[in-house]
């Protein structure tokens, strides 16, 4: 039996700032994972990945990242994606500072 497709989002680094971005359903890039489009259909996800990968002038290193559906939108399932979402944990700067 083929492995079940788990929910994903499209993520990358922004070309100019280098920070973490996610693709929304409206084809915008967002810095906020909660606003990212959740992809639950494998064929659709592959298509979205191809489209996003062609946006060379906006994004670098586009890939599909695993998420779980939470109350407020997608949530990371692996600690790496959690750190990408929240910024460095050594002290509050970057995204953590903005949130304070």
């Amino acid at each position, binding site marked *: 039996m083929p492995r079940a497709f788990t929910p994903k989002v499209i993520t990358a680094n922004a070309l100019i700032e*280098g920070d973490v971005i996610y693709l929304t359903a409206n084809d915008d890039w967002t810095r906020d994972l909660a606003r990212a489009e959740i992809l639950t259909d494998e064929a659709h996800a592959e298509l979205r990945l191809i489209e996003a990968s062609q946006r060379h002038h906006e994004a670098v290193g586009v890939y599909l990242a695993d998420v779980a559906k939470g109350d407020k939108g997608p949530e990371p399932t692996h600690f790496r994606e959690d750190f*990408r979402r929240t910024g460095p944990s050594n002290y509050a700067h970057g995204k953590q500072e903005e949130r304070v």
Partner: protein
Amino acid sequence: MYRYNDFDADFVAQRNRQFRQQVARRIDGSLTEDEFKPLRLMNGLYLQLHAYMLRVAIPYGTLNSAQMRQLAYLAERFDKGYGHFTTRQNIQYNWPKLPDVPDMLDALAEVEMHAIQTSGNTIRNVTADHFAGAAADEIADPRPVAELLRQWSTDHPEFQFLPRKFKIAVTGSPNDRAVIKAHDIGIQVVEQDGRIGYRVLVGGGLGRTPMIGKELADFVSQQELLPYVEAVVSVWNLLGRRDNKYKARIKITVHEHGIEQIRGLVEERFKETRAAFNGADLAIFEQIKPQFAPPAFRNAPTDAFDRAYEADPVFRSWADTNLAQHRAPGYAIAQISIKAHGQTPGDATAEQMRVMADIASEFGHDELRISHEQNVILPHVHKSDLPEIHARLKAHGLATANIGKISDIIACPGMDYCALATARSIPVAQQIATRFDELKIENDIGDLKIKISGCINACGHHHVGHIGILGLDRAGVETYQITLGGDHTENAAIGQRTGPGFGYDEIVPAIERLVGAYLEHRTDPAETFLQTYRRLGMAPFKAALYDSEQSRVAAE
């Protein structure tokens, strides 16, 4: 200090102009990322987890105060107000924006600095003993030869596409402070029958297959050194395993062919390179050497130092821990810890960089060094100035008296910044330092080196830590593997694994148990952790790590 000549300055300026155009073409869409990536890497620009990262070379770790001030300016103007000093005498900026990088490179060029060959499969920044020119045990200053190697390797046409990156370190002392045995080529200044020459080691390295360098030649004369090193790199350039990235480093080549065969091939090739060099390098070396002449040391009484040492226990503790012996009477080498308890190892703010630059220009013959242990050194200070220096450092959080102690931890950026990481390193270092500061046993523990990497690439030198910590991803959980008995000195050794790893919440208590076992088993306070480990082996430490772990789990 080496000063650029017109050729050097033009070369860097031209490279910067070229890169400025490449960045513009990337931003306007004429270059794709695939086309741009090798170009940015040629200029030390990486893309990490949250931002771009610019790696700037500090050749052989030597800086003057103008250069340090410029690094502070870059931190403030283009970053978040700090820079990160690394184990290879570089500084990394963690937050630049792509359009700013050409301006950053131009600002660096103003003070004769650059980011060329800080990435890619080239000969990287040549590193050296951070006490060079000052150490009491030194045979000769290793920096003139490091500078010669730098000029020879920069843009060397044959060595821009090597099988893998290539790292050279030089020491001028028998006590190795440059970790030469963990470099692709390690060079040690030696003296034979009154002649200065070089002992050449090859095939050391850390990473996923750690190895200690082997002696290739016990004495190479000054006129032979550059052709000899060129012969070594050239032999590896042909033999190196380009089919497999993980087997490409020269350590694997030496391992697979054996040191005897490599020596034979190098000797063969050396016949050609020696003929080709025709002495031009010797002439350049003679021009470089006087630029590293020692400063005019002052002859003055040291009473002020003695008085402060008697009167002020905080100063005394700093002096006992952070000073090293200088070769000139009345002088000391002052080590500034960039490891305040709980801070990110190696991070210095713009303000701290300026304070250190000011002290260097007022009291330190305008010289600063960066150590491979991520600290800053004032190589030449007169002892009578030390109370004032200490007071100023203290006012800016720079007077932590922990050099060589358990909280003087090397930690790579790990998962907080690095795209290759499998777990975090910095917060582990922060927690260990804070914990042992709370316990107030740091001085009692004495010399103990903890080194942490966030993946098997071993940027944090964990293999050569007395206690090494390697962060891994085990089924989606941060896990930390411990090694014991590593040594980064002239007696270099690779640490041994203790057993299964520990979770993120378990690693600090595990280190505490290890240190407890040492305190219990040492014969007297003069026996260091490493000596105790060498005397007793793994068993008592393993018991402390795992037996108590089991009993704790069982008790829950």
